[in-house]
């Protein structure tokens, strides 16, 4: 956090000054560790064991916040008799099909009965206890290399800093998600936080430290294949009708208003053309038939199935896993459009990609037509970023962009206009949505820049009279309201751009509700009803945040209550109630169908209802907990021994773990930092961090060169020998070395270097299809890598030793990966 989010880290330092204990778990000792009370080095890929052991510590010691757990979580739910836990079948839950690598979750669905004493053997609380019973300090030492003393100290701090009077926050960098078990990492933290009563309360929560200015916004208003704005799912082929589609979302809780959210979106997009009679044009939306994620799409490009590709401020030739495959994919396109501030590697792959040097590609044989279109910077356009706290902040335009540079808003809008002009006379059914699109924003200036505020107003939504809405509570399911993203409704409440508010922090409360605007409804903390007890009184005076005011009959507090304002704590829903009315006055988790925090998740997860330790797709050790070695549901391309089975059997070939990370002075693939002289001067060169022990083992010299070889590539880096990385002692005395690699370099910019992401496989979490980029295996040897075709020979010599096919046949086999 101190390295990559230094300005946010000021709040951690301030908390420490006020008495908070700071624990830093990281394979590397960093500047965060330097300011923490304790640094706990651990093996990457072992986090579920560490967190699971903390869950076990809480449960076996009776440290859970019992009142909170009983009232606010699904701990009392009773599971069906045919539910089988991973503990019962060596790492697999009931319902697993090894051929499709998928689960049928019918045996996970709670029966509907509850046991508030939490003693029923099949209640979630007891199942959870048994599931994690073997996750203890000894296992943590065996799997993660954390000493029993360090673990016990950490667990003690955690339980002392949780309860009525205290709260603990977990803060993670999104590397936690970049594992084949990424979603389950966050799940384990969520279980722990629910057991300790740390959700919805000040000083609690699970905070993601996102690494891009509006990465939160990019999921809220998604340019993601499986989502529509506001987390509505993209329709699938089986969703033939609007009514059928809506059955996929819960009827109870705030998702119960799903029809209003979807119909208002379709009205915002298609205006008068969307009517009740034509199901608001829902039947014409494109349908999904499985995985259309970025990694699958890149393989489709290699197969020749994709003609054109747009990159908007994104550099997959450096920044995506398996970058070599990314570049080979670019070379198979008919045409490519790259929009960026400077010319990046993804635009110049045909000139200077590493594959040209190895002879795998030749410039004159690459048929890809490339358009590079310069983009406007953040000060050359108006618009909102959504920061990692869900807060939208408007950035104003300060000046015009130079030359041909334009905003992406301009590009999308004018491209849309030109495409629409080409189909204006078409009567083809496939052009009906295009022709129906509401696509007329005010333009200004010589460049005809579309008005970003008009777009934000469409996102906010409007009523039948065209008046801007004040929030999603005003949305109607009958087509009378329009709203481009229901969770953002209210960002223009009162006809005012709320996201542009900048009341100085010194002139408002510590919650700072008048700076920017946070979704939903300007709430700064989600699920804050849980900051009060079931009766609506704060759990403690110290941790007072939102509470029930009996006199006025409403919820009040420091923040906007995340609850229906006048729903009394003693409200009990009538039978058959739907929507928010189906939740009781004591159900704080209002987006859940039962209003309760999910210790056990029976639906929506593809790799099991409870987090379970599996080894990473590549790991030098085998699973110490279960016979099931790696995630039984992870998505792997291609189905090749290099990626579909971990390399434990080949430990002698690729004996070390490597993990990738960022530096303070650079940003992701370097397109926004390697072009700046100041940042380039501060961090000029790629390096690998190794411990003195590993340096001795491999004859590496500080400041010298090393070659890092994985099953997919070999790269070179300067050597940094440092005690910040230390070997870890695991089960039975085995020692594991970890190599640290910042991944910012490529062939363009002021400072250049090899592409670290070339080393990584395509191994994905099955729930969100995010790649495992925080852990894989390699060898390290002293000296620079070979040049030309000899580089491929080196990679192939390792593959041969590991019993793998040569690299070119591996690339070819990606075509079988679907």
């Amino acid at each position: 956090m101190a390295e990559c989010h230094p300005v946010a880290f000021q709040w951690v330092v301030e908390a420490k000054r006020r008495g908070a204990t700071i624990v830093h778990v990281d394979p590397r000792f960093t500047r965060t560790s330097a300011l923490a009370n304790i640094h706990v080095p651990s093996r990457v890929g072992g986090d579920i064991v560490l967190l699971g052991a903390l869950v076990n510590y809480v449960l076996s010691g009776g440290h859970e916040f019992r009142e909170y757990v009983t009232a606010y979580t699904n701990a009392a739910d009773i599971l069906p008799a045919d539910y089988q836990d991973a503990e019962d079948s060596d790492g697999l839950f009931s319902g697993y099909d090894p051929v499709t690598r998928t689960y049928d979750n019918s045996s996970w669905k709670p029966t509907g009965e509850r046991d508030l004493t939490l003693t029923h053997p099949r209640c979630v609380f007891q199942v959870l206890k048994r599931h994690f019973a073997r996750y203890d300090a000894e296992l943590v030492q065996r799997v993660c290399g954390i000493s029993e003393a360090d673990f016990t100290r950490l667990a003690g701090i955690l339980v002392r800093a949780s309860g009525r009077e205290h709260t603990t926050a977990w803060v993670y960098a999104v590397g936690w998600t970049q594992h084949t078990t990424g979603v389950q990492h966050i799940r384990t933290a969520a279980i722990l936080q629910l057991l300790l009563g740390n959700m919805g309360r000040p000083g609690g929560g699970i905070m993601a430290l996102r690494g891009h200015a509006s990465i939160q916004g990019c999921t809220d208003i998604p340019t993601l294949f499986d989502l529509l704005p506001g987390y509505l799912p993209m329709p699938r082929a089986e969703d033939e009708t609007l009514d059928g589609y809506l059955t996929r979302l819960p009827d109870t809780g705030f998702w119960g208003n799903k029809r209003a959210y979807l119909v208002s979106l379709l009205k915002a997009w298609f205006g008068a053309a969307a009517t009740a009679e034509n199901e608001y044009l829902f039947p014409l939306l494109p349908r999904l038939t499985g995985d259309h994620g970025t990694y699958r799409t890149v393989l489709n490009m290699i197969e020749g199935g994709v003609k054109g590709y747009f990159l908007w401020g994104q550099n997959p030739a450096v920044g995506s896993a398996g970058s070599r495959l990314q570049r080979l994919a670019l070379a198979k396109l008919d045409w490519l459009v790259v929009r960026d501030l400077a010319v990046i590697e993804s635009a110049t792959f045909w000139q200077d990609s590493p594959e040209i040097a190895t002879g795998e590609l030749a410039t004159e044989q690459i048929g890809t037509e490339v358009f590079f279109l310069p983009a406007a910077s953040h000060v050359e356009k108006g618009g909102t970023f959504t920061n990692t706290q869900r807060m939208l902040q408007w950035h104003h335009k300060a000046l015009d962009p130079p030359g041909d540079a334009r905003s992406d808003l301009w590009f999308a809008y004018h491209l849309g206009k030109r495409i629409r002009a080409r189909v204006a006379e078409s009567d083809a059914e496939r052009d009906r949505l295009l022709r129906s699109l509401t696509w007329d924003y005010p333009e200004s200036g010589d460049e005809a820049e579309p008005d970003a505020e008009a777009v934000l107003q469409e996102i906010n939504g409007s009523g039948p009279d065209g008046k801007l809405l004040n929030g999603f509570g005003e949305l109607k399911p009958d087509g009378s309201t329009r709203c481009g993203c229901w969770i953002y409704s209210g960002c223009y409440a009162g006809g005012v751009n709320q996201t542009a508010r900048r009341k100085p922090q010194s002139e408002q409360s510590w919650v700072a509700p008048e700076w920017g605007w946070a979704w939903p409804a300007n709430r700064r903390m989600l699920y804050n009803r849980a900051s009060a007890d079931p009766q609506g009184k704060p759990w403690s005076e110290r941790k007072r945040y939102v509470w029930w005011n009996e006199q006025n009959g409403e919820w009040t507090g420091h923040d906007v209550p995340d609850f229906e304002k006048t729903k009394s704590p003693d409200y009990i829903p009538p039978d058959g109630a739907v929507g928010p009315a189906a939740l009781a006055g004591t159900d704080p988790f209002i987006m859940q169908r039962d209003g309760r925090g999910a210790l056990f998740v029976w639906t929506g997860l593809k790799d099991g209802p409870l987090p379970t330790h599996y080894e990473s797709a590549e790991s030098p050790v085998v699973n110490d907990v279960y016979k099931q070695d790696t995630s039984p549901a992870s998505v792997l391309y291609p189905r090749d021994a290099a990626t579909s089975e971990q390399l434990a059997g080949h430990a002698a070939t690729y004996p070390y773990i490597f993990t990738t990370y960022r530096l303070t002075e650079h940003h992701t693939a370097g397109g926004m930092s390697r072009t700046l002289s100041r940042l380039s001067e501060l961090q000029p060169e790629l390096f690998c961090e190794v411990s003195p022990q590993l340096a001795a083992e491999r004859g590496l010299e500080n400041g010298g060169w090393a070659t890092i070889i994985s099953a997919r590539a070999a790269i070179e880096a300067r050597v940094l020998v440092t005690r910040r990385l230390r070997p870890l002692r695991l089960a039975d005395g085995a020692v594991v070395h970890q190599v640290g690699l910042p991944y910012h370099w490529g062939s363009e910019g002021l400072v250049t270097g090899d592409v670290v992401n070339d080393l990584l496989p395509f191994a994905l979490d099955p729930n969100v299809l995010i790649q495992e980029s925080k852990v894989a295996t390699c060898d390290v040897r002293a000296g620079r890598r070979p040049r030309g075709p000899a580089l491929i020979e080196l990679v192939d010599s390792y593959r041969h030793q590991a019993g793998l096919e040569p690299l070119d046949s591996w690339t070819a086999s990606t075509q079988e990966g679907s």
Partner: protein
Amino acid sequence: MAALLARAACCLDEDVEPTRIAKWPALRQLTGRDRLGRGAAVRSPHTEAASPRTASAERVVASICPYCAVGCGQKVYVSAVNGKDTVTQIEGDPDSPVSRGRLCPKGAASKQLVTTPARQAKVLYRRPFGRAWEPLSLDAAMDMIADRVVAARAQTWQDERDGTAVRRTTGIASLGGATLDNEENYLMKKLWTALGAIQIENQARI
């Protein structure tokens, strides 16, 4: 040491104006109160006359740092340089409850992100099998891209798959960075969905 230097100063050539010697920064640092050379001792007529770039800016525009997702407040200082609007400085915004005026090395360098000569201001075109970039007008590029989208869509359109309506194209893909504004993502998603393009992705999955 200070006494020695003071005596040395007295012994210097009489032609040298005594006040000028007294203004010698090292002497002032060693003989004055500012022994660390962080204040008065290192001031010169040049520093006295200097003023911060921010003081003379023609306008100050509120912005947000474009790097990570912390969302630090920025103040963008703009002045006309050679008759052209130019960003002369970007500083942290002390009013922000997120950042309280602070910026990290990247945020503090973000003026260079805007002004760096590495920025490409003109459209570049590489024809199939070409060996070099060629110039192209923005207008021509926009028309060529629109033509290619329409053609690729027509060639790869799927009305059905396995007997079920899908109404889509898998011939076009898009991958966006996460420094895109919400408004930009919104127009992109709206346009792509109307086009039937589904392979629409973002750094948020990476």
